[in-house]
């Protein structure tokens, strides 16, 4: 089992307010580790611990400013006097759809998410986004039917939901962005030709013989074949071709 180690108190302790209650925590910790240091065990509000899952969105204020600040608890270092809460969940309605039946027309997005047009460009969403995504800009892009731009602008979204929590138009931005990205990936970006060809070749059994050859090969022979395999150079271009065409 995980050893429960006492955190060496070498770092200076600073006061933070977790949901209004004061705790002294080492100044080098992230908000997440500080909350654990304070004695909480997470069930909600903690997922990847690496800044990509969006489970740990946190809002806070600092003395002397009316500003709402935001961050990911697992990524943001504590600051003295910060006054914080995590928002582990915020309701947002997602529309279901049959992906196969979409075609990539803007109207499809409009139909699934009428509320798009309730955006008044207040920008609260972009301001609160812990990933610095320009949320308002992708919503603006979608309103004018530019799904590709929306997909690109929203690419770093981790779907933490803070945008939706701040939206006066009550939009579920991150669900809409997810739809935009999928439409972009499938309908607005050319599908890879080499992939189609390869799948067809495999289905036609083109590589089966050479592969079976390897599978039944004596281990020493396999090791030799492995060592002798030609390496594609690191800096070569797309069109590099190996000298021999065994296995191709």
């Amino acid at each position, binding site marked *: 089992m995980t050893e429960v180690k006492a955190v060496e108190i070498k770092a200076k302790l600073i006061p933070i307010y977790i949901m209004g209650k004061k705790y002294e925590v080492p100044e080098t910790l992230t908000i997440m580790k500080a909350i654990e240091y304070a004695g909480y065990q997470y069930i909600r509000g903690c997922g990847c611990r690496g800044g990509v899952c969006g489970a740990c969105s946190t809002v806070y204020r600092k003395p002397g400013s009316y500003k709402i600040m935001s961050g990911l608890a697992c990524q943001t270092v504590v600051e003295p006097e910060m006054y914080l809460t995590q928002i582990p969940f915020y309701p947002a309605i997602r529309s279901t759809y049959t992906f196969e039946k979409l075609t990539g027309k803007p109207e499809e997005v409009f139909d699934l998410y009428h509320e798009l047009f309730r955006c*008044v460009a207040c920008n609260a969403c972009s301001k609160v986004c812990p990933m610095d995504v320009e949320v308002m800009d992708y919503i603006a892009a979608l309103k004018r039917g530019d799904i590709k731009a929306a997909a690109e602008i929203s690419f770093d979204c981790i779907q933490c939901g803070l945008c939706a929590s701040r939206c006066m138009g009550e939009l579920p931005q991150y669900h809409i962005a997810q739809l935009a990205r999928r439409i972009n990936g499938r309908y607005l970006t050319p599908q890879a030709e080499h992939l189609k060809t390869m799948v067809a070749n495999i289905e036609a059994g083109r590589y089966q013989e050479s592969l079976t050859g390897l599978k039944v090969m004596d281990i020493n022979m396999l090791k030799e074949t492995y060592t002798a395999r030609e390496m594609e150079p690191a800096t070569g271009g797309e069109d590099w071709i190996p000298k021999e065409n065994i296995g191709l």
Partner: protein
Amino acid sequence: MKISYYPGCTLKTKAKNLESSALACLDALGVEYEELPRWNCCGAVYSLSDDDLIHLIAPVRDLIRVQEQGFDTVLTLCSMCYNTLARANELMKNDEVKRGTINDFMDEEPDYKGEIKVVHFLDFIRDEIGWDKLKANVKNPLNGMKLAPYYGCTLLRPGDVSIDKSNSPVVFEECMEALGAEIVKFPKAIECCGSYQVLGNPEAALKVSNDIITEATAFGAEAMALTCPLCDYNLGHRQEEMLKKYEGTKALPMFYFTQLMAVALGVDPENYNLDLNQAVSQEFLKGKNLLEKVST
């Protein structure tokens, strides 16, 4: 010269023909333009409620983007966008208290005091290009086309943002005349097409639109020039309904004025999305032999 331009959402979807033709004309006239790199919907309609400042956030933000882009003038194509942006701009220029409130709210943006000039394509051509230069560039005059320019409301009202004299404007007629058209003036040219009433009260809107079309026809028009996607929806896309409902109404071809300008300037029809216009309109241009001339 180079100018910043604000397209507006509808021009990126339903009214691509307005944008593509306008840009083709700018190319033909040698005007350089640069679309705002970041922009949002203008709000679509200027809010009339006195303390509804939140709806001004969107257009003011767009004006700030123009400043960010490094321009002092922004060109609009859609008359609704023009109206919304221009009015928001007037307010920011003149109403110190509301300006303060709005700037305070948008504390992540630089303060804005109404420094940008908002122009519409029509007054831009009039003031910056001039009718003479426009005429000189015409390769394919609209000779013999009996054309009724229709302003609608938002280019002319309220007075402080009107691109011409509110009650007796001439800019649209002069522009079309420079392209060689025979102008049909008619009183309802500056009346409302029904606008957003189409959502709440479609029947009433249809009646208003029908009155406009029948009057223009009665004055001898064989085609109408428009500046606004909403007018195009009410007057153009709903014509079939009118024809069914009102006896005596005749189909009237509709064009964005920029499309007609593009025809006259000899731009290849590929470039202004005639396919988005009604069939009657496409037929009309063909009948006038205006398209063939371009392609030869």
